[in-house]
């Protein structure tokens, strides 16, 4: 199909130079010595002035990790990772401060990335006069730069509602009882190889607690940036939605373009109590490597939600455009009766990217309900695997799951794979699975181009149409960004 070939070439040429977030910030950094051992774990814990229990918790995880092996069951292939050849702690010399005191170089970095760190003087009449054009809903941002959180905005405003939104390092100091109670309660230290590693060396991430009955008045977001060379990022996020509360949280991530592979192994834990609801959205745009497969982030992430309460709800939405390797399965443990889990995913594997992603929906409570919508796009030599588990326990009477997996192929060198696991131990439960695989048709591209759209725009349009059901789950402010990102990531992969 010549049209498609041409598009692929076009996309590739754009992809080569098209990663617009690939710059590096020149700032004075402090590193831990290279390598990983108990002393490094102690170093990190000391740097963060952690209580004894947390150091012990880390050391236990480290001991577990040493007995574990890298998982091999996924479809991703990569050269062995040398865990001794990386830095496990890298932080700007100037530590976290109030927004006004943040290093201007860092502020400029986030500005360049389009992340609003400064609190806008918006909401006319409330906090000074803002023009109507600025009167958008503010977004509270926690910015994590390599190993530390450098700033968190709108803290004061959120505190008025009793909402805690800060870096997890800070939460360890200010709300140790909450951290101690919930940390590791969803993803235990020995859960898997990468989670154990994270437990041992996690450096920063966000902490959110929404008290009973409170609806969080703004989007909360964390922006992760890997900047330093040869550095792993091990972020840890913990979100607790107390009874009857609601929160929407978004994370974004980018990294400079480098020839080396960098490891990112995060753990995210969500806890939703009775009638609470958490919406967790991800726009993952780590550096994917160049068109020849050199460089890029290895993204090995464990994300899990416990829907502990009755009628609780967790909704994961992810747009995964970056990373050389993506290995993540945001999951829901549906413990509470009538609890609801959702997973909406768009994953792109272009050039030499590999994505092995999906979800686990573990139905334990009665009448629990889960929905899975996965859209995989493969282009270039990209390999995209949907891997999902739906497990229905014997007590989950009347449980329901609906899964829809759609794959879109661009070109003939890429691959799409769907690996659904279904374990149903309850007679009254209902599980449905639908899957489709299609190609971007030459006639669709021609139709768009005949109407004046460029090849790239045509691809973007068709791909965005393909992903519509997922994109509409994103908060409005981010949906537009995500659409552009899809087009850029595929400029060359004929989305």
């Amino acid at each position, binding site marked *: *199909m*010549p*049209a498609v070939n*041409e598009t692929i070439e076009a996309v590739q040429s754009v992809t080569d130079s098209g990663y617009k977030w690939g710059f590096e910030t020149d700032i004075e950094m402090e590193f831990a010595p290279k390598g990983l051992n108990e002393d490094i774990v102690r170093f990190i814990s000391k740097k963060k002035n952690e209580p004894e229990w947390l150091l012990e918790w880390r050391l236990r995880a480290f001991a577990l990790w040493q007995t574990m092996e890298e998982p091999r069951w996924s479809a991703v292939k990569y050269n062995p990772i040398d865990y001794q050849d990386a830095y496990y702690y890298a932080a700007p010399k100037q530590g976290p401060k109030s927004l006004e005191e943040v290093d201007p170089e860092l502020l400029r970095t986030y500005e360049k990335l389009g992340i609003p760190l400064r609190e806008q003087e918006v909401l006319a009449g409330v906090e000074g006069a803002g023009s109507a054009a600025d009167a958008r809903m503010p977004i509270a941002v926690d910015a994590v730069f390599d190993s530390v959180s450098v700033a968190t905005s709108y803290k004061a405003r959120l505190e008025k509602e009793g909402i805690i939104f800060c870096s997890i390092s800070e939460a360890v100091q200010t709300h140790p009882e909450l951290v101690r109670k919930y940390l590791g309660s969803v993803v235990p230290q020995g859960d898997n190889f990468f989670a154990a590693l994270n437990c041992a060396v996690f450096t920063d991430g966000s902490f959110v607690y929404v008290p009973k009955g409170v609806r969080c008045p703004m989007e909360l977001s964390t922006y992760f940036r890997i900047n330093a060379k040869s550095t792993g990022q091990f972020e840890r996020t913990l979100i607790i939605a107390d009874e009857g509360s609601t929160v929407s949280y978004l994370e974004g991530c980018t990294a400079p373009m480098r020839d080396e592979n960098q490891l990112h192994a995060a753990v995210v834990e969500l806890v939703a109590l009775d009638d609470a609801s958490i919406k967790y959205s991800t726009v993952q745009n780590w550096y994917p490597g160049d068109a020849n497969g050199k460089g890029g982030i290895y993204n090995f992430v464990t994300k899990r939600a416990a829907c502990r309460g009755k009628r609780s709800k967790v909704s994961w939405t992810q747009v995964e455009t970056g990373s050389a390797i993506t290995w993540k399965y945001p999951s829901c443990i549906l413990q509470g009766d009538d609890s609801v889990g959702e997973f909406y995913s768009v994953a792109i594997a272009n050039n030499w990217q590999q994505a092995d992603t999906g979800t686990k929906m573990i139905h334990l409570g009665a009448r629990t309900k889960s929905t899975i919508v996965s859209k995989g796009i493969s282009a270039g030599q990209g390999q995209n695997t949907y891997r999902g588990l739906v497990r229905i326990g014997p007590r989950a009477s009347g449980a329901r799951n609906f899964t829809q997996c759609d794959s879109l192929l661009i070109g003939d060198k890429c691959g799409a794979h769907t690996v659904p696991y279904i374990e149903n131990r309850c007679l009254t439960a209902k599980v449905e699975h639908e899957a489709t695989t299609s190609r971007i*048709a*030459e*006639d*669709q591209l*021609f*139709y*768009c*181009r*005949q*109407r*004046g*759209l*460029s*090849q790239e*725009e045509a691809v973007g*349009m*068709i791909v*965005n*149409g*393909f*992903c*519509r*059901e997922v994109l509409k789950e994103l908060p409005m402010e981010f949906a537009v960004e995500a659409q552009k990102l899809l087009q850029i990531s595929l400029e060359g992969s004929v989305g």
Partner: protein
Amino acid sequence: MGMLKIENLSAEIDGKTILNGISLEVPAGEIHAVMGPNGSGKSTLSYVLAGREGYEVTGGSATFHGQDLLALDPEERAAAGLFLAFQYPVELPGVGNANFLRTALNAIRKTRGEPELDAMQFLKIARERMKALSMPEDMLKRGVNVGFSGGEKKRNEVLQMALLRPQLAILDETDSGLDIDALKIVADGVNAQRAPDFSALIITHYQRLLDYIIPDRVHVLVKGRIVKSGGPELAHALEKEGYASVQEAA
């Protein structure tokens, strides 16, 4: 001067010759009809003019306002003012019709140096045009051509023509599958475009549409070659005698 000038144009698909030396000139302001039996190469001609891949031009030329049409990408031809109403409009699942139409319109406006339209401005124009074509407004919300009836698809093509205001419209069997009311609406849509700088090439299998859009010239295409040209009366003659008489000439 001829707005569209085709000279001795030949083209093949997969090594099979489909167009066999077509010559045709459509001056500015004129509407020409191309008629011919199934498989004679009508759609192929429209695709070659619009720049679809997979068609190899093996000889001849096609110019538009004196510019070599065949050297341009499809989107450049669209920007130059060429519009093709597809015989089989393509479905774009998940792509909202409004979004698609506005993106297309803004792409064309950009090349004309006109400012882009925001969603509100676009809706106002689109609603007007849709009313004229008796299209229900909810067609803007649906996926492009997805689940549209045959007639709705054709009307959606005419709507796009009305929005994009091309200088040369090629309508490939836009009439087939339409009942008489829909046919009149489509014809009105085309007639409304008539202007000194607008030309159209109306490809049709039947004479019916030409009762409502009176062509300046009628060309008969058989086996990839124009075998006969004449005034509007030629369409009537064909209707009566069928293609058999002209086919022998081919």
